[in-house]
């Protein structure tokens, strides 16, 4: 299924708006309600969706744009997540023949797997930047509780994203070609 440029721009604008709202929820609403310890990194979830479900040469640029939005709410910046996003995309590309998100459980497990790839990449870069690999395990561990929660939310978010991107939900490996 092919997508027109105008459709693409519309869907992408809605995705950016959704990410902004979710970032505000993570950065302000949840801490205001007493949720301090673990962050729900919705940018990761949205980028994993784009990596798995869209087949387009411009996805890397979309990943970068989403990370720029994320950098407004985090000192992480855009580059780290963009790099991790590209690694996730490449991995998804290699696994595309076996990726079929046919049930909520499979979606959760797939998302957990890709989150793990994301966090290992990000942690390795952070450890390289701070020249201290002693913290590798500790940083990875700090991601785990939030990532499990995100995986549990993922079927709902993927369903929403499928509506935004008009991807058929029965789901082959690649929903939309742009």
């Amino acid at each position, binding site marked *: 299924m092919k997508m027109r440029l105008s459709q693409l721009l519309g869907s992408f604008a809605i995705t950016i708006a959704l990410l902004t709202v979710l970032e505000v929820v993570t950065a302000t609403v949840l801490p*205001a309600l007493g949720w*301090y310890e673990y962050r729900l*990194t919705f940018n990761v979830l949205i980028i994993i969706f784009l990596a798995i479900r869209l087949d387009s040469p411009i996805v890397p640029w979309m990943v970068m744009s989403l990370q720029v939005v994320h950098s407004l709410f985090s000192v992480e910046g855009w*580059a780290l997540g963009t790099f991790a996003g590209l690694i996730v995309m490449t991995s998804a590309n290699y696994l595309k023949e076996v990726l079929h998100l046919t049930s909520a459980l499979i979606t959760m497990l797939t998302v957990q797997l890709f989150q793990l790839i994301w966090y290992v990449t990000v942690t390795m870069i952070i450890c390289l930047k701070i020249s201290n690999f002693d913290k590798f395990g*500790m940083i990875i561990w700090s991601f785990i509780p939030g990532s499990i929660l995100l995986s549990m939310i993922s079927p709902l978010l993927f369903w929403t994203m499928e509506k935004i991107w008009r991807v058929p939900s029965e789901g082959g490996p690649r929903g939309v070609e742009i």
Partner: protein
Amino acid sequence: MKLIQESSKTKIVNNLIVGMLAVYGISQKQFNLSEPSLFHQVVTEVISPVQEGLANSKKSLSSLWDNYLSIVNTSKENNVLRKQISRLESDLTSMEEMRKENLRLKRLLTFTDEQPYNKIMAQVVGWDSSNEFKVIRLNKGTKHGIRTMAPVVTDHGLVGYVYRATENYSDVLTILDQNNRVDIVVERTRTHGIVEGVFNFKCALKYITRNEPVEVGDKLITAGVGGIYPKGLKVGMITDITKENFGMTLSIEVVPSVDFDKLEEVLVLTPLDSGKSASILPTQSPVIEEKKI
């Protein structure tokens, strides 16, 4: 066939370009200090008021929720009375909140008299949305005299320092963050060490040799070296000491004196001569001069 090949070529080229940009971005990234780009400044100024509004509505939201819960399942006859009670309770809650806020501000003000700095009171409006960074956003910026590297405190002790600032908002790298290292002195033994953020809202005290007589319960204060934090600010307390069978130093766990779960207002300390025209980044070095009255 040709089309598929071309599309795949475009994908590779796009991946390479974005990948190279990302690698360049990572190489330029500093996790302990940042000057916000114009884009970042503009968008932060647009988004942060929403965050501020949501942070401020916390009290009214919880009061609204309490009222809703109290009204559910009441009979019609009691509705008027209950509503009245709810209103009074809500007023009482607001007054209690105001009383607590007054108390906190009073304590902050008493505390600030001891510090030879300009004190800028600011409210916490958000937290960093990534797991690996412990950063808070304040509702004051360069317009109010805040500058990067300025220490941030409460009456309980050290919070962190200003990592980046826009005109009306600033981000503070807290002592819980792994990129923030604080030079400290153990109050009782005068032993020097470095406090680093770990995770789970705790810190680690590093470079304390095995023969140092530090104990659980020892209080840590800033050493005043390093050019960011003034001397004598409370940092935390030792809660656990582990002597490994190897290595020259102790493994020490520290609980910060500031309760980050309940952080609402903070004070940003700027040098007394720093006016509102203070630049975003220090021009020569990040060292802040300590000037007494």
